């Protein structure tokens, strides 16, 4: 019974010390080879598409399943998380540009697309038919569709009988303590996009001054829009600035909060709408399947699905969201002159970093 160690000893003695070291290293190599063998587990007969997305899995996964049903193409998703501020996937795409794995990037916003285009990550793709409300990005490197809206999320109990905030500039209103208000760092995600939009409307210097005043007031700059939502839901802040998907999700779950659009008055600049964007990756391994997915995600069925799930709030000029969020049916949008060039945007981000992170 058991191993005959003595016989094994004889064999090993013949190998010598170098042989034994080689054997040990060989075993390590064998283990790695097994991993390699495990890598190619895909069914080659099935057409597939690799989609990198910063859209929450909760919203994007049902859409992928639907696309698989209608197209027969298997989706291999890579998700981003808010903690990585979308930059996880963007930096990954830049790193992989010499040997791309991804076929499509479906982004929950647009600000990172310009950077990817500059790095040559995005290919030109113009669908044969552009549905209403879908816009081509510069040089056709990406498509913009649908949109989320920047909103105030407000805790009913903490607000009490006070009138709610109605404008972005209310963040500077002395009737609120700094700690009453929460916004995400304007260096990442949709809050960064919002800061850029403000700079386009107000100018760079007034925008930097605005954020500088917020910082001096002790406004709570937090790690992301979901943290803003959580702070307001738990009544640790009276109100905060976030996106419709975060705010409406909390409202739908019956939390003691409500949402409002900022700057809707006659003189107000309107609420910022942040469209989704989708782009074909340069050198995509599955280009045809990628184009089919892009055509699908900008189409009517996908828009309806995403609106129903709470991800999209508007499509083109229409409000398409589920009424559960109880936001006004009419929306005054912020109009952007698109006056900032790439260099100015980079400088703004760096200046904001110096204003906020200190």
């Amino acid at each position, binding site marked *: 019974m058991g*191993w005959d*160690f003595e016989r*094994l*000893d004889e064999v*090993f003695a013949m190998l010598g*010390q170098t042989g034994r*070291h*080689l054997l040990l290293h060989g*075993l*390590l190599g064998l*283990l790695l080879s097994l*991993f*390699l063998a*495990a*890598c*190619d587990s895909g069914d080659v007969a099935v057409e597939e598409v*690799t*989609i990198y997305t910063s859209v*929450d*899995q*909760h919203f994007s996964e049902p859409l992928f399943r639907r696309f698989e049903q209608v197209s027969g193409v298997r*989706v*291999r*998703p*890579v*998700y981003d*998380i*808010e*903690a990585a*501020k979308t*930059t*996880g996937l963007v*930096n*990954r795409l830049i*790193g*992989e540009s*010499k*040997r791309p*794995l991804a076929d499509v990037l479906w982004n929950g916003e647009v600000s990172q697309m310009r*950077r990817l285009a500059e790095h040559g990550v995005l290919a030109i793709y113009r669908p044969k038919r552009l549905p209403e409300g879908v816009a081509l990005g510069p040089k056709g490197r990406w498509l913009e569709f649908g949109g989320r809206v920047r909103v105030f999320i407000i805790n009913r109990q903490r607000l009490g009988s006070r009138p709610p905030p109605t404008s972005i500039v209310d963040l500077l209103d002395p009737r609120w303590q700094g*700690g009453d208000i929460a916004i995400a*760092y304007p*260096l*990442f995600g949709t809050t960064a996009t919002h800061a850029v939009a403000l700079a386009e409307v107000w100018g760079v210097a007034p925008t930097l001054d605005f954020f500088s005043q917020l910082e001096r007031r002790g406004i*709570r700059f937090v790690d*992301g829009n*979901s*943290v803003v*939502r959580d702070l307001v839901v*738990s009544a640790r802040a009276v109100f905060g600035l976030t996106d419709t998907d*975060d705010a409406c*999700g*909390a409202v739908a*779950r019956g939390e003691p909060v409500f949402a409002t659009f900022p700057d809707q008055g006659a003189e107000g600049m309107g609420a910022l709408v942040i469209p989704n964007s989708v782009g074909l990756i340069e050198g995509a391994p599955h280009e045809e399947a990628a184009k089919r997915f892009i055509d699908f995600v900008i189409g009517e069925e996908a828009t309806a699905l995403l609106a129903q799930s709470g991800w999209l709030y508007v499509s083109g000029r229409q409000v398409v969201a589920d009424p559960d969020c109880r936001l006004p049916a009419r929306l005054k949008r912020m109009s952007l002159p698109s006056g900032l060039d790439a260099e100015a945007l*980079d400088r703004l*981000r*760096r200046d904001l*970093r110096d204003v906020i*992170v*200190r």
Partner: protein
Amino acid sequence: MPRRSAVVKGRADWSWVLSAACWLVLGLGPVVAILAALIVEPESWLHAGPLSARRSWLFVKSALLAFSVAGAASVIAAAAAHWLRSQGGARALLLWLPLSLLTVPPYLHAAAWMGLADHLGLQLSGWMAVFVIETLTFLPLGLAFGLAGFAMTDRQQVDAGRVFADDWRVFHAIELPQAAPAIGIGAALIFILAIADYSVPALMQVEVYALEAFVEYSIAAESAASLLVALPVLLLCVLLLVLVAAPMRALAVKVSFLAPAQRPRAPALHRGLRLMRSGAVMLCLAQVLVPVVSLFLMTPLGDIWVIWSVSLREIGSSLSTSMLAASVSVLLGLLLAPRLASTGWLVAVLLPLAAPGSLIGTGLIVLWTLPGLALVHGTVVMPVLADVARFAPLAILIQYVQSKRTDPGLIEAARLYRGNGPAVWLKVLLPLRAQGLAAGFFVVLGLSMSELTANLLVAPPGAQSLIVKIYGLLHYGASQQAAALCLFVLIFSMASMIGLLLALGRLRAANLWSAHGRD
């Protein structure tokens, strides 16, 4: 004789080259790749920005915070560990529970404590709040190293000391110096984790240097630039590890190999010290109970099977990746642990430990998309490589410490009678090193299960990890589902720990405190 020496030397060099090649690829590869990118693209230096007075002051404040957290967590944990090791029966076994919390992300620890503070009407914010929450968050880690440290004390020396001096003097002069290396390693590790974490400070409205490095990574989209910003942290961590590792190496060899497998007698200490130990134990227990109870309260237990079953793919992906990473790390430990006697090797092995996860991930992409190496990129090997690069140094270090505590006489005797064949390996070497192998495996397994930043960059399409799903659910606000999945991680960690103890035949509480088990 000279000819024979030359032959032996030649063989040793061959083995050295193989070991170095293994570590250069698996451990140092990502960092070297980023450094190479820095040399190839020197313009990245310009994007990083200068180490301004503001940035310097932020670095100093963050380092002080991390030092304070590491110091406080290690002192409290050591005090608790000292009491725990004198306890027997179920109490002793239960107090290994904190170790299973190692895999719960800091964000959840913080959320649990913030929930409690809210309940009590307290507002947590500012540097003091970060200090308290991070100290509590890292207590389990400190406790693990505290227990390991006191398990290394020589019972014969302690008993002999007690004949001539009071318990406090024995504790101060014998026990603490012998436990200090392990406690010091724990403190160094806590420092590294604390200085790299910005999630808890962000929740408490505190800006730290780690956020600065991440902001640079986000704004520049150039890893080389963010490496430059992270460089002060990297250098400080390496310096700290080297400082801690040197006395550890010297002291580890002084430990006697003849210690009995007995639980030590409870020492008679001053009342104040006894109170301090009791307080430390209470804090450790609270740190276990608050997250666990809060996880159970948040989890919809009626739907738990449904939540787990729809996440089977992510669970399987994380488990297989973590187990493979732990296996490779343990094998690397067998190869490289004996080399840590050299300071050069020590620094080379510990260096990746101080590199931020995002840099490891990007470095892996750079390395494995090079011509001729691209086979691995985009496969399930990449997250394994990420976990190995990040955590294998710990497995190697643990095995090194363990090998120092192995009686060389036993190995010499075995080799004298059996040569260097598999019988010696299987019947003598591996059993003697089983604890180190198991501890290294478990530590890497646990940390890999919750590794996020590097895996996010290298996970193959369609193979999402459990931790990414948990963070996604937290973002969406589905805290109940996230809690259910965290509970799975917790139960898995506990089960694997108990399984390891059973496998080692060391479930009996009395044996848990022995460094030598069946000696």
